[in-house]
């Protein structure tokens, strides 16, 4: 195997979203450079060892290629696990789950709203999410409803506005406005298709012609 493939193998493993096995690597290389390229699974295995040795001994990199049952994939060395853990826990603190976002949206548009009202809309118990949102200071208790039991009312906070870059609550896009942006999408699509069909034959010719033009550019 030509050593120019060291980098190719590395790049393939790096970018694959699944652990990549030798067969796929060989497939890509032969697929592009020709079936007569000499490259075997053993050579790929060797290449990975050579790369790992280089990463560790020469380059002192903080990552390497791991071999797991169904292939190769990059992994960060375990000695950095605590830094990685810190980063991902910081990230998860910032992130809102889909359920939290949905709840937040209902509160934002319906505020002030009680927990029972919210749960009627969502159809599920919302204690946990309400707590999360309260903790993140995106919502707050804004008072009590005058109805029986005087349940607590929830509303959004200034932090909420900041999070979404809004100046004031009335800056929230109105559902009507969202509808407007979305309107006629299907209709327009239909029209486009009809037009496309009408000119399809011409398009075919143009493609051929332009490919030729491009090749000569």
């Amino acid at each position, binding site marked *: 195997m030509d050593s120019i493939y060291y980098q190719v193998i590395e790049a393939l493993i790096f970018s694959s979203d699944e*652990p990549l096995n030798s067969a796929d690597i060989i497939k890509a290389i032969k697929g592009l450079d020709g079936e007569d390229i000499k490259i075997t699974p053993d050579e790929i295995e060797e290449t990975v060892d050579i790369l790992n040795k280089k990463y560790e001994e020469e380059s002192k990199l903080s990552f390497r290629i*791991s071999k797991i049952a169904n292939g190769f994939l*990059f*992994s960060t060395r375990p000695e950095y696990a605590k830094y990685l853990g810190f980063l991902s826990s910081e990230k998860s603190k910032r992130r809102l789950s889909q359920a939290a976002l949905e709840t937040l949206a209902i509160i934002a548009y319906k505020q002030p709203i009680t927990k029972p009202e919210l749960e009627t809309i969502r159809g599920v118990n919302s204690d946990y999410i309400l707590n999360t949102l309260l903790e993140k200071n995106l919502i707050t208790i804004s008072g009590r409803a005058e109805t029986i039991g005087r349940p607590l009312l929830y509303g959004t906070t200034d932090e909420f506005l900041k999070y979404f870059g809004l100046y004031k609550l009335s800056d929230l896009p109105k559902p009507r406005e969202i509808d407007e942006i979305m309107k006629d999408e299907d209709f327009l699509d239909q029209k486009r298709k*009809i037009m496309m069909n009408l000119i399809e034959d011409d398009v075919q010719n143009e493609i051929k012609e332009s490919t030729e033009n491009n090749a000569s550019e």
Partner: protein
Amino acid sequence: MYKIKLDQFEGPLDLLLFFIKRDELNIYDIPISRITKEFLEYVNLIKMLDLEIAGDFILMASTLMHIKVKMLLPREVDEKGEQIDPRTDLIQALLEYKKYKEVAEEMGYFETDQRKVSFRGNFSEDEKIAPPEYDILLKNVTLFDLAKAFKKAIQDLKPEVVHEIKKINITIDEQIQFILDRLEKDKELHFLSIVDGMREKIRIVITFVALLELTKMGQIGIKISDNFNDFILYKLEVANG
């Protein structure tokens, strides 16, 4: 002459720029009659097919016709007494649009370059050790908060209970287990909900000590609650490694 296709143009301005380019017209001296005629032919073609898109073209057609009429009339003058070319606004719009069309082309090259780039695909084998939440929590919950919560729990007891004399057999270990059991059921617990229903001060005290013990062992975390005088307990994942 190029054959005009229906979907080639992003809009009326794009079509006008096409005419100008194709016929090598001077953008500052557009022959309005000629271009209006061509424009209308195109509009008639698309009108049959697509009302939505045609709307913008029809609007432009009427603008062109309006300019055409104005060209025949004596020129208006601006405040400096200079003649106003009826085409000025149209020229301005064409140049403005062209400016962004050019940028869009360059952005197309960026897009092409970026499509040759891939990012790391698989992160499943990266080892991560979650930070001891314990540390972070102490930033939010002060000892004062803890003390206030405790005081509240004690104060809420009904006074007559205090007078009962009864030996209470309760240990810290039992209460540790009690808290852990409760946390099996709920991810998070308010402190007040744990001591709710406890009638003896000593039981609350021991529960509180158990809770401190669990915190110290790193088994549970404490965070601030929005209710005054209360706080939330939650179970920590036992760090692996």
